C-alpha cells in the first residue's frame, strides 16, 4: 500500500534529483556569457534550477496529500504487468527481439493459466512472425537478433 503523500514526495524527489543532476552536469559545459555568446551549459543550467525549485514546491505541497494512492491489489496488478515487461526488455540483448517477445507472450499467457497451452503457443509464435514480416521484410528495419543468434551463426 502506498499513500498519496509517499507517492507525491517520491516523485518530487525523483524530479528534483534529475534537476540536480542537470545542474551539476551543465556546470561542466560552462554557464554564463563566454567568448562566443551564451555558453553551452547556460540553458540546461536554468532548466535544472527550474526543475529543482519546482520539485521542492511540489514536495512541500505533496506532504499534505491524504489518502491511498495505490492499494495493495493495485500494486500487485501493476507488478504483474511491469515485472514481466522488464524481464522481456532485459532479455532482448541476449535472446534478440523475436525470441524474447515469443517467450514473453508465452510466459505471460501460459504460466498464470490465462490461456490454454496451445492458444498461448499460437499467439506466442504469431507475434514474432508478424514482427518479422512487417519490419524485416516490408520496411527493412532490422530488429536485434541477440547474442544467442550470433553465437549460433545467424
Amino acid at each position, binding site marked *: 500500500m502506498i499513500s498519496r503523500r509517499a507517492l507525491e514526495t517520491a516523485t518530487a524527489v525523483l524530479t528534483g534529483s534529475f534537476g540536480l543532476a542537470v545542474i551539476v552536469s551543465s556546470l561542466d559545459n560552462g554557464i554564463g556569457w563566454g567568448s562566443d555568446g*551564451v555558453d553551452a551549459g547556460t540553458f540546461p543550467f536554468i532548466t535544472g534550477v527550474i*526543475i529543482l525549485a*519546482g520539485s521542492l*514546491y511540489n514536495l512541500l505541497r505533496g506532504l499534505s496529500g491524504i489518502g491511498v494512492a*495505490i492499494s495493495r491489489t493495485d500494486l500487485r496488478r501493476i507488478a504483474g504487468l511491469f515485472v514481466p515487461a522488464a524481464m*522481456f526488455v532485459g532479455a*532482448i540483448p541476449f535472446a534478440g527481439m523475436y525470441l524474447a*517477445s515469443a517467450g*514473453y507472450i508465452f510466459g505471460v499467457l501460459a504460466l498464470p493459466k490465462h490461456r490454454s497451452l496451445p492458444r498461448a503457443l499460437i499467439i506466442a509464435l504469431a507475434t514474432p512472425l508478424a514482427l518479422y514480416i512487417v519490419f524485416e521484410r516490408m520496411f527493412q528495419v532490422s530488429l536485434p537478433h541477440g547474442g544467442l543468434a550470433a553465437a549460433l551463426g545467424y
Partner: protein
Amino acid sequence: MENFQSLLHGFTIALSLQHLALMVVGVLLGILVGVLPGLGAPNGVSLLLPLTFGMQPVSAIILLSSMYWGALFGGSVTSILFNIPGEPSSVATTFDGYPMAREGKSTTALATAFGSAAFGALVGVILITFLASWVAQVALAFGPAEYFAVYFLAFASFVGMGGAAPMKTVVALAIGFAIAAIGIDTVSGSVRLTMGVDELVKGVSFVVAVMGLFGIGELLIAVEEDIHARAVSSRIDWREVFRAVARLPKHGTALLRSAAIGCWMGITPGGPTAASFMSYGIAKRFSRRGRYFGSGEVEGIIAPETADHAAGTSALLPMLSLGIPGSATAAVMMGGLMIWGLNPGPMLFIDQKDFVWGLIASMYVGNIVAVVLVLLTVPVFAALMRIPFVVIAPLIVIVCAVGAYSVSNSYLDVVLMLGFGVVGYLFKKLSYPLAPLVLAIVIGDKAEDAFRQSMLMSKGSLAIFFDNRLVTSLVVAGFALLLLPLALQVLRLLRGDADTSGEKVRII
C-alpha cells in the same frame, strides 16, 4: 482568393488514388490505436514515423495526419460503447455518451458524437485554410527574439490554461527542455548532460519518450484501474444515424461555442484534452438542460466532441505556420517533418506549397473518410475490445519496445523507454501533464537556439525581448499567462473559497 486557388491545387494532390489509399490505411490504423487502451494518437504516429522515411513528405504527412483523425474518432467509440476512453481527450465524452448508449441509444450517441466531431474538425480546417498562410506571412518578419517570445508564450499558456497544477506543468516542461538538451549541442559542438553514458551523445528521441510516457505509462494506469469491457450493443442502425445528424443543427449554439473553444485551445496550445473538458464544463453551465448533464444529454456529447476535434485539427495551424505544435500528437508530427528535412514554420508556405496545401486539402478529405470508415467499422473494432487485456497488454509492450528500438537501432532506447514508462505512470497518477513534456522535447533545441541567437544579437542583454512593440506584447502576454493561476488563487482566497479546484481535472 489566392488561398482558394492554392487549396484547389492541394485537392489535386490529396485526391490522387495513392493518397486516398493512404488516408484509408491511416484512418483504420488510427481507429485501431484509438480503440486500444495504452496506444493513442501520439504513440501511433510515432510508431509509423520510422516507416515513412522512404516516402514523399506530403504522402507521409497525409498518412500520419489521417491516423490522427482516426485515433480521435476511435477514442470516442470506446468512450461511448464501453465507458473506457481510448484517448485522454475523449474522457469527457464518457460522461454523457455512455449513459445514452446504456439506454439502448448507442447509434444515436455515436452518430451525434461523429457528427459534431466532423463539424469541429471542419471549423478547424477552415480556420487553417484562411488563417495559416496569413500567420505565416506575419511570422516571416520574426527574428530570433520574436521566435523565443512566441515559444515562451506557448509554454506559458500550458501553465496558465492547461488545467493541471501550475507548478507540476512547469516541472514537466523544464524536464522536457533538459531532455532536449542531452547530446551534442548544435551551436558549440560540445557534449551536454550525458552523465557519463557515451551512447547518450546522440540525444534522446521524442519517439522513445512518447512510447514510454504514453504507451507503457497508460498500460500501467489501465491495469491498475482493472478495466472491464462491459459492452452495450454495437449494432449500427443507419436510419437513426441520419436522423441524429439531422437533429444536430438544433444545437447550433452549442456546436459553434464548442468549436470556438476547441480552436482557441488548439492554437494557443492547451491541447484537445483541456479543450474537451473546458467545453463540457461551459456547456453544462450555459445549457438550459445543464442539470441533466451526466445522464445521457445530447449536448453533453456535442460539447466535448466538437471541441476535441476542433482543437486536434487547429493544433496543426501553429505547427505549420510557426513551428510550434499545439498538441502532443502535433509535436510528434513536427518531429517527423524535421526528420524528413522540412523546416516547420513560415518558410513552408513559400518553399513547400505542395506539401502545405496538399496537407490542408487532405484534412478536408481525411475527415470525411474518417467519419464514413468509423461508422462502417464500429462493430469490428467493438469486437476487438472483447480481446482480454492480458493478451493485449504484452502485445502493446512489444510494439512500444520495437517502436523505441527502430528510431535509431539502439538497445539503450528500449531501456530508456521502459524508464519513461514508469515516469509516465507516476506523472499520470499524480496529474502532472505529459503533453508539455513531449512538446518541450521536440522544440526545446529550437527555443534554445532562438534564445542564444537573440543574446548574440544583443550582446547578452535581455533588453532585446522588449525591443519593439511586437516582442514586448508577446513577452508580457506570456508573463500574464504564467501569473494567471496565481492571480486566480489570490482572487479565490479573497472571496474566501477553499482551494479545492486545483486538480479536479485529470489532464494528460
